[in-house]
């Protein structure tokens, strides 16, 4: 997936919205900043998430970070195999590295998301 076609939260999650379902992952910038990922705590299918609510945790040797849902709805799919192949997040964060899919109840939150260009600009300013 070309990241330029994705939407980004300022908390470093990305979302691809299609037919009312958002596929969600974390950005290459986040993966790079965390370095040395060792663990991911994932939610279950059927869990409900709200905009900005933590749906899981990604843990590196250094620290633990929560992952926040950029949309509201019900989790309909979880990429559970990723826990055993966290390197996928380094090699292919925007395709094979997807984390959850959320069936959205409305578009709440989507208008707050950034384009790839704006997100990159924000990351560059922060560093």
């Amino acid at each position, binding site marked *: 997936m070309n990241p330029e076609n994705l939407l980004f939260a300022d908390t470093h999650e990305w979302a691809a919205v299609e037919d009312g379902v958002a596929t969600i992952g974390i950005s290459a910038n986040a993966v790079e900043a965390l*370095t*040395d990922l*060792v*663990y991911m*705590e994932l939610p279950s299918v059927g869990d409900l998430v709200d905009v900005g609510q933590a749906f899981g*945790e990604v*843990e*590196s*040797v*250094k620290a*633990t970070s929560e992952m926040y849902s950029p949309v509201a709805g019900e989790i309909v799919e979880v990429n559970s195999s990723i826990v055993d192949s966290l390197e996928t997040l380094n090699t292919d964060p925007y395709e094979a590295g997807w984390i959850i899919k959320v069936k959205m109840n409305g578009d709440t939150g989507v208008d707050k998301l950034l384009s790839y260009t704006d997100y990159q600009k924000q990351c560059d300013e922060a560093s």
Partner: protein
Amino acid sequence: MVDFAGWEMPVQYSSIMDEHHQTRKAIGMFDVSHMGRIWFSGDREEIGQWLDGLTTRRVAGIAPGKIRYSLVCSQTGGILDDVLVYYLPDASGDQPFWMMVCNASNRAKIVAWLEQHIGGRAIKLDDRTESTAMIAVQGPAANQVVAKLSSVDPDTLGYYTGTSCQLLGDVILTRTGYTGEDGCEIMCDASIALEIWEKVYAAAQEIGGGASGLACRDTLRLEAGMPLYGHELGEDVNAAQTDLRFAMQLKDREFTGKAAIVAAMKDSSLPVRVGLQLEGRRAAREGCTVFVGEKNVGTVVSGTFAPTLQKSISMAYLLPEATELGTEVTVDIRGKSHPAVVVEVPFYKRPS
């Protein structure tokens, strides 16, 4: 770079994992210049006696060349700092001198504490932390690389001994470290530190070594079961709770805090330091609560995913009833219960 006790410190140069592994497999170089370095002058015997009265380990009368890991405690047995006390030959070889290395975060406190306890003695403190530097060269190949540049081969020094010697100028070379690996530490004047770093670094790089940051210093020391002030050690921790028995010599000597430490050793209600190994890869970090069944038995003080062991390890203070090796506990990590077991510390021992 992050601020660490007022020092700008590299947390990591590249990857924590890589820097950790290079230290275990070849060489990791650490800039540890933030550590406090205090020299003592006066009558040598008197300095030894004086320091002996302030440290949990006997230092009076030790032979030149010796280094002692020790705790400095308050009257109540609380730990003010963990330090190294050095009695080392000077450059001439016949005028040994005393010095101490303390934690950066405790330096001001320790200098004040020492000054307060000089009393009428003609002893002077010289805090040279800012005019000197300290480089730790750690790993199985560390000593052979330093030997090429130094007038003294670190391998000829016994473990926890040191000497004055030449390495691009006057340095103090000691066979010490905080990684669980063999290796040495170099103290030198700040003016030659960069040149020493660059020369050792170039030699280290040739055999798979490199610079290692503060973050992997933490994962390395944790695997080696070494305490870190602010985590395993603090003023609210009595020295008796630390399980650092080698650093405490209680017989036939007096030192500040001894009575309180002896009393705490007999107090079976106090939590003591243990190692935990968790199932899975999730790390239990500082502050996580530990349970046996429903009962809260203590708190995690440090934890990480251990790069060498490929396991999640923690150190915790637990009630004595939960400290036997093999005790099954659960650790609450942000609301989720994770099984763990009490294991031996150190978690990692280097192959001998």
